[in-house]
């Protein structure tokens, strides 16, 4: 006779997946190749390229935060600490692959050729978005959490219909993973076997809310439950992120269906320039993650591979020059006058809005005549 106990056993409720899989890592926090790194090999040339991208991204953050403190920007959301997750993933995609970011993907955006001026435009209050996604293949930022994952899914519906070999990638965070839209996107993409790469930067904190309050099951385990291929990777190891993304993208391109990469990383700064993370997290925690800093790790690795001071000095000089352009770019950013915005709401004229524009111009004109 079958007992309930026997049925329960047959379901293997204690399978290791439930607690999550170990993180894939090629280079450890000290810059030393892990067992997997030694076995699979790491390209020093690629490591230098990705390191260079990360150095510039970090410099952008540093300068932009300073510009915010000086009143030049109204707000800035740093990618500081998450450079490896972003650079490693975007550099593993083809430049023709469409990307739907959240709002903290400056490091990824720089890799797609988006200029510092265009990146800062939004945070200076000059526009809601700074660039043409059709050119950069990098959609404008989405500030309502997780909404972009559905846009990526729809974009991928088109790719699947056209039978292209592209990958549609979307970034989101651990906080956004609680949103219905993200879970609807997981489900739709999996049900349709769509070419979507969901890339979660789990930076441990959704403003002040820790991931432990957001979810009981690790995200990559949850994603597997939806039917997505799921990868768990050290998001502060740029080479591991690059390798995992390359593998996931290849499998998607080959018709393997959607995948999720959960990259464990850490937001070194506050949620934004207005946030004070000291109110909700400890110095010890920060120090612990600082030890796992993605840039520090790569510098140690490159030095261990014989890359010398010349390289690092040239990189620093390049970053200094970049910083000058960032500051100049920030000052050059200007918004559009209100009268122009009336024209950007609809493609075809909306009579009520046209009347309002005329009334606005008449009002402005009447003020001018009184002076």
């Amino acid at each position, binding site marked *: 006779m079958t007992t309930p106990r026997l049925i329960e056993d047959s379901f293997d409720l204690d399978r290791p997946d439930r607690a999550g899989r170990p993180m894939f890592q090629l280079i450890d926090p000290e810059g030393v190749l892990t067992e997997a790194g030694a076995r699979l090999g790491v390209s020093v040339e690629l490591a230098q390229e990705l390191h260079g991208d990360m150095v510039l991204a970090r410099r952008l953050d540093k300068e932009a935060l300073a510009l915010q403190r000086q009143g030049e920007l109204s707000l800035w959301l740093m990618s500081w600490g998450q450079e490896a997750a972003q650079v490693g993933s975007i550099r593993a995609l083809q430049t023709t692959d469409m990307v739907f970011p959240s709002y903290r993907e400056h490091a990824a955006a720089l890799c797609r050729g988006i200029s510092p001026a265009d990146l800062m435009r939004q945070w200076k209050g000059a526009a809601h978005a700074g660039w043409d996604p059709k050119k950069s293949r990098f959609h404008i930022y989405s500030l309502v959490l997780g909404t972009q994952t559905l846009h990526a899914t729809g974009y991928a519906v*088109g790719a699947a219909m056209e039978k292209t070999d592209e990958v549609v990638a979307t970034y989101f965070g651990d906080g956004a993973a609680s949103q219905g839209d993200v879970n609807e996107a997981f489900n739709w993409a999996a049900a349709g076997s769509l070419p979507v790469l969901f890339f979660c930067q789990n930076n441990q904190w959704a403003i002040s809310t820790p991931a432990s309050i957001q979810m009981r099951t690790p995200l990559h385990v949850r994603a597997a439950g939806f039917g997505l291929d799921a990868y768990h990777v050290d998001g502060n190891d740029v080479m591991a992120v690059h390798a995992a993304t390359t593998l996931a993208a290849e499998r998607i391109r080959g018709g393997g269906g959607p995948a999720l990469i959960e990259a464990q990383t850490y937001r070194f700064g506050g949620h934004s320039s207005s946030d004070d993370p000291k109110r909700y997290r400890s110095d010890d925690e920060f120090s612990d993650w600082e030890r796992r800093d993605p840039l520090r790790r790569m510098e140690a690795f490159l030095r261990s591979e014989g890359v010398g001071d010349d390289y690092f000095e040239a990189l620093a000089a390049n970053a200094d020059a970049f910083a000058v352009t960032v500051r100049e770019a920030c000052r050059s950013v200007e918004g559009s006058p209100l009268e122009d915005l009336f024209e*950007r709401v609809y493609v075809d004229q*909306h009579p009520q809005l046209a009347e309002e524009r005329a009334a606005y111009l008449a009002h402005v004109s009447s003020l001018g005549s009184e002076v």
Partner: protein
Amino acid sequence: MATMMLGAAINAGLRKAMEDDDKVVVMGEDVGVLGGVFRVTDGLQKDFAEGRVVDTPLAESAIVGTAIGLALRGYRPVCEIQFDGFVYPAFDQIVSQLAKMRARSGGCLTLPIVIRIPVGGGIGAVEHHSESNEAYFAHTAGLRVVSCSSPDDAFHMIQQAIASDDPVIFYEPKRRYWEKGEVTAVPALGLHDAAVLRPGRDCTLISHGPTVKTALAAAAAAEEDGFSVGVVDLRSISPLDLTTLRREAATSGRVVVVHEASTFVSIGSEIAAAISEWCFYELEAPVLRVGAYNMPYPPASVEDDFLPDVDRVLAAIDRSLTY
């Protein structure tokens, strides 16, 4: 061209739009094999290439969000929301994403998406199946909102909405799906033109969607009593064809707005304000509104008392005439 039921006219319009432009895709819950719960998409999946009529997961936010992704790729998605009361899970994707994408992108991105919504009550349905929620979307900049009332308009307006480069919320009066009318080969009006269905010297009724028929019946009844009551079918809620509304209001001097939605902060409120502002000296009476009461749509057993009917419209006409 032919006599058709309103639902069948939308089907014919969708079919024509899909034939004319292979970027038009239809998506929604049960729109494929079943042909939609109201059969508006009947036969389309069978007759068009795979992928152009998509049975989606039951997730409204995902339907609209996914349509946005498709539109960013150059498609012209037509989404069906199965019932009016089920559109709210998609509210964020509609008001924050769909409506604002063009403005947010500085005019760089356009989203030519149509969201079809069977609207209103009068079919004895359970809760959440009889709502009139057009004011939410009309209040949202970036959307166009239209409402058809006849088979002819249904046939042409769905095609015009699909051809629009701006997102359009397309309301279909579900209790009129099975009513027949003549469908012409060529549209007489643009998508955003109001239609003067009958001119009036004494009073003008302004309505849209399911209550246009009610307004016409009330006008006919008033005529028997010797009053010349006109009827204007808005057809478009955003934008409003204020040129036509002002002209008709100025002609009769008395206006009653009739719609199924509750009158509080409604399209009727907007029309009353606009006409009061522009036709102040021509008006003989304040603009009156006839609509639903400000309560959740009631159980079907009392919906006949709840919905604006001919008697309530006639009472409002009487009130207007006594000023």
